[in-house]
């Protein structure tokens, strides 16, 4: 019997398969190239320099900037690694009272922008604040010369503030990694004679390495490009230097040069880490997933674990929210409802748009990179994702220039051909800021998706291929359901970061357009911090809900789990 449908012959099928992969490859290359344009613009601006900045910088402030930046990012990286990974492990694999609550609550500090927590703690810990006031009353001191109190506006203060609000990135990714681990690996490690601690350090931790490294590198990039906190605390980092050269020495190309150095540094770190783990594989070789064993902790250990989880939440979330709430209530009648709603709407729209676009692009790039296995594409994706490390303001300039060029080019084209002037189509609109956000936050989405894809064994792709479905269908029907949690995580990370974003928005926004973040900044920079309480709280609140949703989704994402831990028999 001849089949009703003609069967494809071997070479056609092969060519079709190549074409499908080539489409992905091409699409990914185009997207990565487009995203890389602003970064390239920054580099080009740097090269176009005719300002003789380097000798002056090198002999005066550059060593100081570099040292401060290294200390700051190193300390914050280390602090967030310890807190994030430690709490993730405790909450995922141990049982102690309050674990369920801590699971979600540990993510809360992520919703608090670093500059807001800096303002809050300065308010609380400064000379005129409640803490020192209480001390002075208790001990009878009268002026600042009578006693010593740690200065919050210092490098140490900046390290603490940033660690408190950035550890959730590491926590989130580490937790997702621990959840996605097969218990069998850990059990094998136990049968081979390693106790729970050693299993953690020598098996679980290394297996979670891609996720933890990505989390820590996000933290470091976030630290590198922060300006609000370090400016407020008078800590002179590399980024402060970039702004300084740009604005005080009026040298944009000098600033672009410094930004390019920062870029190279981050690229170097990333390359180093990749080279280090090039031969290692992290995907799980078994598809057997049992519910996670909850190691039950004894009384003392349980208390220790609970405190270890409680402290970051208290310091990173409860205290700032308490202070902001107090301000918001006291100054409630001064806030204008119409303005407040407009700001909130703007923030939400922008963040949501950016999150949607960034996640889609990130998925495309990470997956395209995976299936084509092309080193060039991989490198280009890596490069495009580095936008996260560049100070928002410099990146804004990198976006403004090409967009402006494009708009003016289109306008002159239209005028030449049709005699109508299109004016500025993209510049100065929400699209321009969204583009900026996407370039800035792509690292979040690519990183998260990549970490998740790394855990899916390539044999899944091969199996799907032998069953006759192409790459697109494989993504849709096989990978996406497994990666649901990570994708949602990536979207939430970008959304929350978008709500907090400040420098880029200040530079690129349209007329009569305020977000919650820009409004808070304007009030705080005029020492009207108390009036910003409501706006700050809204930023935090808008961040909390998605964060909690994410936590629930991740908690249920473990393959084969019904959502409950079982006690180790």
């Amino acid at each position, binding site marked *: 019997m001849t089949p009703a449908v003609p069967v494809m012959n071997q070479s056609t099928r092969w060519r079709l398969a190549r074409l499908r992969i080539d489409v992905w490859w091409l699409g990914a290359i185009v997207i990565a190239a487009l995203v890389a344009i602003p970064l390239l613009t920054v580099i080009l601006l740097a090269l176009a320099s005719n300002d003789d900045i380097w000798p002056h910088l090198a002999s005066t*402030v550059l060593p100081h900037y570099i040292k401060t930046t290294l200390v700051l990012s190193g300390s914050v990286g280390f602090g967030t690694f310890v807190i994030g990974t430690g709490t993730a492990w405790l909450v995922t694999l141990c049982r102690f009272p309050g674990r369920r609550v801590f699971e979600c609550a540990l993510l809360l500090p992520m919703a608090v922008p670093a500059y807001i927590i800096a303002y809050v703690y300065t308010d609380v810990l400064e*000379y005129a604040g409640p803490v020192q006031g209480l001390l002075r009353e208790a001990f009878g001191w009268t002026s600042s010369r009578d006693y010593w109190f740690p200065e919050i506006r210092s490098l140490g203060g900046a390290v603490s503030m940033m660690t408190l609000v950035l550890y959730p990135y590491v926590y989130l990714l580490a937790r997702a990694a621990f959840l996605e681990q097969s218990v069998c690996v850990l059990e094998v490690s136990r049968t081979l004679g390693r106790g729970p601690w050693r299993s953690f350090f020598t098996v679980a931790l290394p297996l979670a390495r891609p996720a933890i490294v990505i989390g820590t590198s996000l933290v470091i990039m976030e630290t590198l490009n922060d300006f609000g906190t370090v400016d407020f605390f008078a800590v002179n980092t590399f980024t402060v230097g970039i702004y300084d050269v740009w604005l*005080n*020495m*009026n040298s944009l190309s000098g600033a672009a040069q410094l930004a390019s150095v920062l870029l190279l540094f981050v690229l170097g770190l990333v390359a180093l880490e990749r080279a280090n783990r090039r031969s290692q594989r992290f995907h799980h070789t078994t598809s057997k997933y049992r519910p996670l064993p909850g190691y039950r902790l004894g009384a003392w250990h349980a208390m220790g674990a609970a405190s270890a989880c409680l402290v970051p939440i208290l310091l990173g979330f409860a205290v700032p929210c308490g202070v902001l709430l107090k301000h918001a209530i006291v100054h409630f009648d001064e806030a204008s409802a119409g303005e407040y709603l407009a700001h909130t709407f703007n923030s939400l729209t922008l963040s949501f748009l950016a999150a949607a676009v960034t996640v889609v692009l990130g998925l495309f790039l990470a997956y395209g990179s995976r299936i084509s296995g092309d080193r060039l594409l991989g490198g280009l994706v890596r490069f495009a994702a580095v936008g996260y490390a560049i100070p928002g303001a410099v990146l804004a300039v990198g976006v403004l220039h090409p967009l402006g060029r494009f708009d003016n080019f289109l306008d002159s084209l239209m005028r030449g051909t049709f005699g109508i002037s299109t004016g500025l189509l993209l510049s100065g609109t929400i699209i321009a800021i969204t583009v900026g956000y996407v370039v800035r936050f792509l690292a979040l989405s690519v990183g998260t998706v990549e970490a998740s894809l790394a855990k899916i064994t390539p044999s899944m792709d091969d199996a799907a291929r032998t069953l006759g479905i192409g790459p697109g269908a494989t993504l849709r029907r096989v990978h996406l359901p497994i990666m649901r949690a990570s994708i949602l995580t990536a979207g939430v990370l970008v959304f929350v970061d978008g709500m907090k974003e400040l420098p880029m928005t*200040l530079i690129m926004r349209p007329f*009569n*357009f305020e977000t919650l973040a820009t409004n808070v900044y304007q009030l705080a920079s005029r020492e009207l911090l108390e009036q910003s309480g409501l706006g700050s709280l809204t930023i935090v609140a808008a961040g909390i809900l998605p964060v909690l949703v994410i936590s629930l989704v991740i908690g249920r994402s473990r393959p084969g789990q019904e959502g409950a831990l079982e006690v180790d028999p």
Partner: protein
Amino acid sequence: MKAQSTIHTVVLAVILIAAAPGAAVASGEVNLYSTRQPDLINPVLAGFTRSTGIKTNIVYVQKGLIERLKAEGANSPADAVLTVDIGELDNLKKAAVLQPVISPILKRSIPAHLTDPQGLWYALTMRARILMASKERVKPGEVATYEDLAKPSMRGRICIRSGKHEYNISLIASVIAHNGLEKAREWLDGVKMNLARKPQGNDRAGAKGIYEGACDVAVANTYYMGLMTTNEKQPEQKAWAAAIRVVFPNQDGRGTHVNVSGAGMTKSAKNTDNARQLLEYLSGDEAQSLYARQNYEYPVKAGVELDPVVRSWGPFKADAIGLADIAKQRSAAARLVDQIGFDHSTPGS
């Protein structure tokens, strides 16, 4: 297929909504880019709309104003810019984004040494950079000039914001313009030795430091004194102001260093008439009075009444050097601050 067409519709809708620019090139509007905070200028702009019927659209661009104007080029929707500090005005001029405004009204209202020779920018308000001295711990006349800040008797008694901040850069630039680079270097080194703490915070933080006993002398712009003295929302700032004596430095010599806020018309302006009307309004009696009073600054137009708080500090002799000459020394000033590591000082070093 169905999903695809839905996606197409959504994307199209989003693009159409998002691409609708907020500003029109209509005849009843003027578009403004400002580095001045909205709540400072909104009352004045409201007055403008009331008096002329022209609507104002504003973007508050704190940094990157020049970059944005340059990138937008000839199609930029901005008609006018409002900014602060002579350095910024000079940068705008150097970036060739402004066009000259010739107006007899402006010429009459604003003194020549406070405008650009080519008419590219006009100063609208003035502020002096004064010394705030502790009433308790500093004797009258003990510190009377900027140069006095470097005296050995001031060791460990000075609070100041970052040397890189534009207000301080302009001050240092004026010292260089008057005394020369070498003398300025010696002076700045001396000031650095006298710092009570690392340069930090803003000008008001200096007042706070005096009140708390951390230092005896600080440097600030005059309007901060006004803002603190009348601060109902944060009454503790009134206490800070009450502890301070205002000193206008160099009264016996060249006069106190002043800086300005100013405005100009952009090259790409479409609503040129409306923009010119805006500038003329801002230089008129009503706006000068409102604008200056709003922020406790000095109006540039002669004969406009001062705010009572500002009047209470008394008249003073202002440095009459052309602002453009100060602007020339700004990059030398920035380099100087770096070379002596002013911002990296720790107390006593």
